[in-house]
């Protein structure tokens, strides 16, 4: 929030600069201001009560009782374009899990050349092929990104700078993005940690109908985290023997890194997407290291776009892996869904999934509170998940 205010102050300062030359009124009237928004309203129900199905880092989700929080969100964005080379964008997003709302974007964008842009402020790191519009349901074919890939990253918003250069190559576009700054790492298992000195880059090649990309990101992570509550006892008391739990906090320091490759195809009525990603830790490979991939294929019949997808994540079970301590575990999901562009600025989506956590806590299930602290919930067998959403933009 402080940053947003700072940007606001900076903006008002910038609008003041040429004001002394002429009147501020005519300058302000030249600002192209737009207010837009997006949202998703949805509900999810599963075939089990043994674990709650979630998206990303949500703390609660769906069981046999439907849950609306899994996919629902609401975002509002304000953009002010001052000149052809200077614009400011701020976006606020509300989800049920983020109590105070989040600010995915709040930046000043400078375009000194048509092919070069610099963003200063808060931006979403391009970790995946579809990192930037991940929360905008209307922008995507799927109802929900495959969690086997998209739930692996703990790097999201960056407070810093992002430089993008785009180069036309024989009718296609090659673009290179580099960024650096600070971030906050949020894991469901261990809560919040600092992510300093975050940096990364993306190389992207865009043709008329195919996009290929490769990305890399890393951050220096540190924080004092609760590993678990250690049982002490039994301690004899007048009320009988009791077990006490002593929090075992531990200072961790690490280098997290993330690499990914992706291909997106949109040609005539054919939609195809595939990504492969890997999450690494320098000091805690058994807790962090994991690989994920998915393939998705779809076809547009007018306003209907049915699709099929398969996704898999494999946790690195070597080097200090413990089922209770890991950030995520093994899982695969086969999904079938349809996007129906039923309205002018809204779609309806339906998705059915068969999620197999392979006897582990997987990636799509909320950790549960126990006297020992947060522990993975292990569903009893495979879980079928049914979701319906309405995505809209305004």
């Amino acid at each position, binding site marked *: 929030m402080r940053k947003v205010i700072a940007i606001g102050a900076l903006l008002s300062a910038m609008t003041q600069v040429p004001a002394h030359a002429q009147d501020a009124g005519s300058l302000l009237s030249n600002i192209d201001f737009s207010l837009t928004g997006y949202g998703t309203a949805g509900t999810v129900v599963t075939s089990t009560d043994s674990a709650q199905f979630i998206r990303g880092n949500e703390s609660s989700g769906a069981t046999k009782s439907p849950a609306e929080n899994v996919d629902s969100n609401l975002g509002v964005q304000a953009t002010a374009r001052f000149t*052809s080379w200077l614009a400011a964008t701020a*976006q606020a997003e509300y989800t049920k899990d983020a109590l105070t709302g989040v600010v995915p974007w709040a930046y000043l964008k400078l375009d000194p050349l048509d092919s070069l842009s610099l963003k200063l402020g808060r931006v979403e790191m391009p970790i995946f092929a579809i990192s*930037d519009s991940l929360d905008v349901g209307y*922008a995507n074919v799927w109802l929900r990104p495959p969690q086997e890939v998209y739930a692996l990253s703990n790097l999201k918003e960056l407070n810093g700078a992002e430089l993008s250069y785009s180069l036309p190559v024989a009718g296609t576009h090659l673009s290179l993005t580099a960024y650096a700054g600070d971030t906050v790492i949020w894991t469901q298992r261990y809560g919040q940690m600092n992510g300093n000195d975050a940096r990364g880059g993306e190389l992207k090649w865009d043709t008329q109908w195919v996009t290929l990309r490769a990305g890399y990101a890393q951050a220096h992570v540190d924080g004092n985290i609760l590993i678990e509550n250690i049982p002490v006892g039994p301690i004899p008391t007048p009320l009988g023997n009791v077990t006490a739990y002593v929090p075992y906090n531990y200072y961790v320091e690490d280098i997290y890194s993330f690499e990914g490759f992706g291909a997106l195809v949109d040609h005539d009525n054919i939609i195809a997407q595939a990504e492969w990603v890997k999450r690494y830790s320098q000091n805690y490979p058994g807790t962090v290291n994991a690989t994920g991939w998915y393939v998705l294929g779809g076809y547009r019949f007018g306003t*209907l776009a049915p699709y099929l997808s398969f996704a898999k994540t494999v946790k690195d079970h070597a080097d200090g892996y413990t089922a209770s301590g890991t950030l995520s575990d093994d899982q695969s999901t086969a999904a079938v869904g349809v996007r129906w562009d039923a309205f002018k600025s809204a*779609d309806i989506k339906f998705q059915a999934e068969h999620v197999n956590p392979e006897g582990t806590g997987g990636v799509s299930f909320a950790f549960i509170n126990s006297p020992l602290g947060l522990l993975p919930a292990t569903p009893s067998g495979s879980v079928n998940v049914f979701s319906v959403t309405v995505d809209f*933009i305004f």
Partner: protein
Amino acid sequence: MKKTLYIVALGQLLLAAAAHADDLVVIGNAASSPLTKEQVSDLYLGKSQGMKLLDQPAAAPIKAAFYQQVSGHDLSQVKATWSRLIFTGKAQPPKELPDSAAVKKAVAADAKTIGYVEKGAVDGSVKVLLDLK
């Protein structure tokens, strides 16, 4: 499903008919250089920047015909594509003007601007940068 296909086919026929009835052209300022179909598609789908884009109202048949001819995308696809670009601040969407006359007027006034109109609407105030036959 068969019914949907018929409707889609009918829709495409109608679009084709509409396009034939009045061919479209991409217009620019007298100082602008000609553009290829790929360049126009890249600009109007936000893949490249550098021009101020003008659009027609969503309800105007010319809009659907233009995007279909240039990119093969229907309007809901175009809208989804732009929602991706808008909500990341990557690009500014084309500015919607009420009709072809307004597009022509804006193009004539600004060298960085392009738009599309019916071929029959072209006059000396603008230059044809691409003829979509």
